[in-house]
């Protein structure tokens, strides 16, 4: 109890000191130099309609590569955390089977979700969304099929292969950027095309596809690890 009082008191006191600092914050009309440069040059230079994507994949491509790495590491980590457990999931505990509603709904929705996911990452350079969002949507489909019982055995090898290929491919595209264009992760070794069309933005869609595949595979792996081993007691 005393702990909670202290915690509350601390939060209040910090707030008391922090909130006055917001007083001077007004609306911005002008952006900073970097942002202005992006807005003025970015779309034309890279041929990507979605400037956020241009920033994410190209200008701050290293962040995104890191982000993929983080997810990759997290997925490996989750697998390792549960991997040290004895595989008692072999002795499948009797689990309540999914209801018919869930089962049918899942098989009905799965293709739609998968298609939507692919759409999201393929059109990442044009519309809001991108590799991550698409990958997550795909993974949610996988989760649904686990729940619905459509998928009983996880295709570990496939997931692993997808992860490896997508990850290595991403790095390879980055390196191609050095060799064929101006720098690491420079997408302009492919023609940038016309702004707004599907095949535009140089290698950006390619990168987003790889990211989407990788994220989908990794999150599926995480879901699988948690599903299989977390119920061991």
């Amino acid at each position, binding site marked *: 109890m005393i702990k909670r009082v202290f915690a509350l008191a601390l939060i209040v006191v910090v707030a008391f000191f922090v909130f006055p600092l917001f007083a001077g*914050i007004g609306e911005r009309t002008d952006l900073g130099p970097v942002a202005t440069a992006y807005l003025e040059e970015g779309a034309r230079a890279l041929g990507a309609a979605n400037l956020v994507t241009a920033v994410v994949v190209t200008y701050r491509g290293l962040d995104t590569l890191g982000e993929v790495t983080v997810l990759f*590491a997290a997925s490996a*980590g989750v697998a*390792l955390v549960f991997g040290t457990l004895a595989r008692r999931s072999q002795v499948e505990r009797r689990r309540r089977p999914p209801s018919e509603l869930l089962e049918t709904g899942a098989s009905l929705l799965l293709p739609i979700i998968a298609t939507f996911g692919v759409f999201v990452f393929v059109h990442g350079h044009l519309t809001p969304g991108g590799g991550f969002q698409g990958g997550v949507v795909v993974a949610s489909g996988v989760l649904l099929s686990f729940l619905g019982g459509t998928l009983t055995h996880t295709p570990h090898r496939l997931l692993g292969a997808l992860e*490896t290929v997508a990850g290595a491919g991403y790095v390879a595209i980055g390196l191609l950027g050095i060799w064929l264009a101006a720098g690491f992760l420079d997408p302009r070794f492919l023609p940038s095309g016309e702004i707004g069309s599907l095949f535009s933005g140089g290698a950006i869609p390619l990168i987003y596809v790889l990211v989407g595949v990788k994220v989908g595979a990794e999150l599926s792996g995480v879901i699988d690890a948690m599903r299989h081993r977390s119920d061991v007691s």
Partner: protein
Amino acid sequence: MVSPVYLIAGALGFAFLYPVFEAAGRRVGRGAATAAIAVFLAVTVAWILGLAAGGGPIVSHTAGFAAPLSIDLMVTLTDAVVLTVINTVALFGFVAMAFRRESGWMGKQVVLFFVLLVGSYGLVMTRDLFNVFVFMEISGIAVFGLLGTSRDGRAFEAGFKYMVASALASIFFLIGVAFVYRSVGSLNIADINGSAHLFVDGTAVLALVFLTTAILVELKPAPANGWALDIYEAADPGLSALLSAINATAMAMVLTRVLPLLDPRLLAVAGVAAFAVPHIQALRQESLGRMLGYSSVAQVGLVVLALSVGAPGVPFAGIALPAAIVLLLNHALAKAGLFWIASALRDDRTGSGEAPERAWPASLRGRPVALIAAAMLALALLGLPPFPGFWAKWNVVTTLGASQSYVILAFVLGGSLLEVVYIMRWLVGVSRSPGDDATTVAERIPADFAAPDDASGADADEEGEIAGAGVAVAQEGEIVGAGAAVATVAAALVLLISGLMAGWGAGVGVPLFIVAGALIAFALLDAVWIPVAVQAVLAVGGVGAYTYLLVPRLAGAPLVFALLFGAGGAVQMIAFLSGPARRPGLVSLTTAMIAALLGLTWADSPLALFVLWELMTISSFLLVLRGHRGAAGAFRYIVFSLGSAFLMLAAFAVSNLQLFAGGFGAAAPGPGEAIASLAALGRAGSISVLLLALAILTKLGSVGVHLWLPAGYAEAEDDVSGLLSSILSKAGVFLLFGGALIFAVPLTPRIGIDSLLGWIGVATAIAGAMMALFQEDIKYSLAYSSMSQVGYIVLAFAIMSHLGWVTGLYLSITHMLFKGMLFLGIAGVVSRTGTRLMYQMGGLIKRMPFSFISVLIAIIAVSGVPPLSGFGGKWLLYSALLERGWYLQAALALFSSGVAFLYLFRLIHTIFLGQRKAEHDAVREAPLAVLIPQYLFIVAIMAISMYPNVIIKPLQTAIEPILAGAVSWEGYAVITSLGYWNGNAVMYVTMGVFIAPLIWLLVVKGRVYRVEQFNIVYAAERPHTPQSTHYAYNFYGHYKKAFGRLTEPWIERFWNAVVDLTRSTSHVFRSWNTGNPQTYAFQIVLYLFLVLLFFRGVVL
């Protein structure tokens, strides 16, 4: 040169592709991974070479755009060095983890390891603030994942806490980034650093507060770092090594990037807290991992502190950044190595447990490589020479002193001392003799009867005690895999070589290399099984040659001491010719110690002096540790010695290095200038002299700080004790004289430091003699005797007159002679009788007559009975004391010399006279090799006694330049203002009065029957046993009774109370780390709050 981005792309690509390699077999995978790291290492080494050759930093723009638009990677020379060390540790660490016999890393573990590398590379190379965050998370998540595979189930709990804490840090970082971006409009760090003018309004404060807190929290600063320690405790030590070496190093580099934004005062405060607090907390750690963890967070705190020293706005910018980097790298290698040893040992005990046997870790004796590596790494971690950390620490400390940051200085040195305590306790634990339960700090008297009910075993028989003390020795096979061994040794070697190179760069090359060379050369001889006797001959020759070459370069007091160290050491080493053929490390350490002592005499700068001082301390510490039951004594010795060394360091730092200008080096200014420069410092000057005096007194074992001395001298091996007591104890004396007149600086107008020294000298003389009186163990008695004698030397020095100093030097020389003789004589006796307890001996005069004569002459000399040289010392001392007007001191010194007579008589009586025990009926005379040095010393003593002018006159000329004298000579007679002494005449008169009665007796004696043992007039009865007839045990019981409570061990009690207090303080501090992640979250927010207050100007 290779673009930086390849390093990241390479590591990441390998991580992605690793499953492919492993699919081809585990060996292939491991091999490929090792090769990959080696390639990375090669790249970074190439960078160092390229950048050192010239040219600007290597920059890599990503995506083909320049910096503010895209993210830049950049490698400067510093970065290249740091990356090289990261790669080195990574290479060794990977070898250690992947090639171990059980649960070696594979699969996703290897992948995560490479991800961790990517994260660290990125942290070092990126120049974009948000990108820093990404790489922070990459390394963080890789660590979390690897934690999940620890053997210890508690790792999950630890990991959870770590995640909560690091999540908070990340959030703070993001908040900071958001506001920074709003203020500056760029995320490029160079832009941000250059936009200080934009940080004006509330958002700017928020930006800095959150950013600073986040970076600091990522560095795991005390007192908001409980979670970090849980990781170190629960994680696989191999992982802890990477965490401590790679992660912390990379994060510290991030701190250096944003340094211009940070307030150095804030860093200083944070650094001090982060350095000092964990050391206190670590004192009671019973888990090695956690203890090393505390040390790690503290070391990073030191780096933060060092960076604050170099921050802009502080007058001496530019020194401390390299120092901080060196500290960082030193710590990375040393700590990683220690963790690898911990991983190989699989023994998590530290030796600080509360249990009776104190839960000592298993001994590494018999595994020389592991032992040497452990010692080197521990010494490197503590920042002792010649390892790189020492040079950096010296730099930091002297800079702190020069900027008069005395409080910070005190914290740094105090914290370092605490670190010495717990690291050395562990080192002593792993390197103690098998069979040593590391509790021996005083003599042990076995009980008459075994006490079956007494389970504590305090008084149990010696053998039983050893068997029952829960002593463990690391067994063959407990070391897991060769990987850790390779890694550890490699780390130690890298540290050693870089440290020696740094020493060369710092200008203390030659004396340092001689010491290191001696150490290494003889260690190699040990390794190829060259017998000790051969080594000893080489060592005597080597020391002799060093001394011979040194002598022409020296003059004055240094010359006297060089001869004392060189000749005294060489002669006593002759004794090594006897004894077992294989005594690993003995000759190596002894020679190194003597070489360091000789080096002291021609050290031409405070740095050189201090380096050699520390080397001398370390080598002698290891010598003590070699002893059969030396662990506890060695522990006390090193703690007190390093405490003294740190005081000395403080003195050097405070007085801006002018201190020893009077004493050393041909080009040094004279004593007058030294005094003048001290006087210019005012109070700080006096205090630094006081600190120095305290340091020297501690090293000399003056009363109050003498606790290390008895066991330190007594528990060393028998033939080493003499070297320690006769030669090593003179190192402190040398500093007294080398410091010339600085101790004459008054502390306050009324109290002079010299008169304090004088009183302490007298008190030491009396206390040492009194304690020597009540020892049953001969070596303890002699050890206390040394303490007492050194007390006289201090007293003589403190007189600060020509005569006093001549006395001091004279006493130093004679003490070296007779204490060497006594210890060697005793070594011979102990080696023959197998006991050190005097009452168990007796009547040995007939068995060991040559030893008896040697001991007899020595005790006559020690007690100052004319006509031998000891009297000369006494006479000079009292004359000098009375001239100075120190009458009370003189009377007390006289009293003390009477007490000395008591214990000396007891010594010779209970060993050589009285009744011989039946089991000693067949003992033989001591080995010739032990007798030779003694008789060489006898010759010297006789010569000095007969012709005192031979020695006193040169001493006078040595002192003359500093203190002019009023001593005149008439033939062989010394004449002072008070009295006179003609050693030659006294000798002749004594011979006359001795020979005349002898002839008389021989004439009138009639027939004299030689009778056997027990044929005594004993109330008409024949005594039963020698045991009941030999009056020896508790010889001066009545004396003890007379002095009553005065003889109780008050000082021991005082220090015990200090230890208890420290331990409870430690517990209070560590209780702050409750183990609850919510508490840790609270602490982190509190930390944020404090930083906030700092920025709002509320604090400081």
